[in-house]
């Protein structure tokens, strides 16, 4: 298994798209900033499995935490309410600094 490239706590931003050929990042997360919560292993690439390819190279999967207030403009809940999504490395960009 390949080593984790992003450590827990790393700041990331979901790539804005386009979602072709096949991207499983929900629309409401595209372009949003979050923080890596955990490394969730290396798995066959779903964007290739979707086309009945072997899904290699395998890709690192991360559990990424977002603030609800960053996702929904009218969010009225607590400031630290959050949402965690599993997102593959190739649909994320690291955020410098």
């Amino acid at each position, binding site marked *: 298994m390949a080593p984790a490239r992003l450590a827990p706590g790393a700041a990331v931003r979901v790539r*804005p*798209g*386009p*979602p*072709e050929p*096949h991207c*499983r990042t*929900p*629309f*409401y997360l*595209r372009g949003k900033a979050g923080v890596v919560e955990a490394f969730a292993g290396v798995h066959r690439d*779903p*964007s290739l*499995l*979707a*086309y*009945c390819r072997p*899904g290699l190279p395998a890709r690192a999967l991360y559990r990424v935490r977002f603030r609800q207030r960053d*996702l*929904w403009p009218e969010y009225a809940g607590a400031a630290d309410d959050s949402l965690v999504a599993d997102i593959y490395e190739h649909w994320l960009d690291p955020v410098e600094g």
Partner: protein
Amino acid sequence: MTDRKVNDIGGLEAGPIDRAEHAQTLFEKRVDALMMLMTNPRIGAFKVDAMRRSIETCTPEEYASLGYYQKWLRALAQLLVEQQVLDADELAARVAAVKARGGGYA
């Protein structure tokens, strides 16, 4: 952005959710069984990722009007033809024959 796919409705207004349960119909059980068979690693016609990709090709009208298992059946037909498990003409002829037979779907 305009690249939101028809299935990707998280966060959109959806109205009340119907949480009523219903008994599975024979049609639903058969579609479920066929999907389990085709995605079983020993057969491996395609994986769930491909099924999702196929369902995402629904038009908005199809996505709104087709039921859950009808979307599965649409994906099964599309993928089994794409993967050359079934021949498109053969499938169409068989569908026509079953329709002509009539009698509904028990």
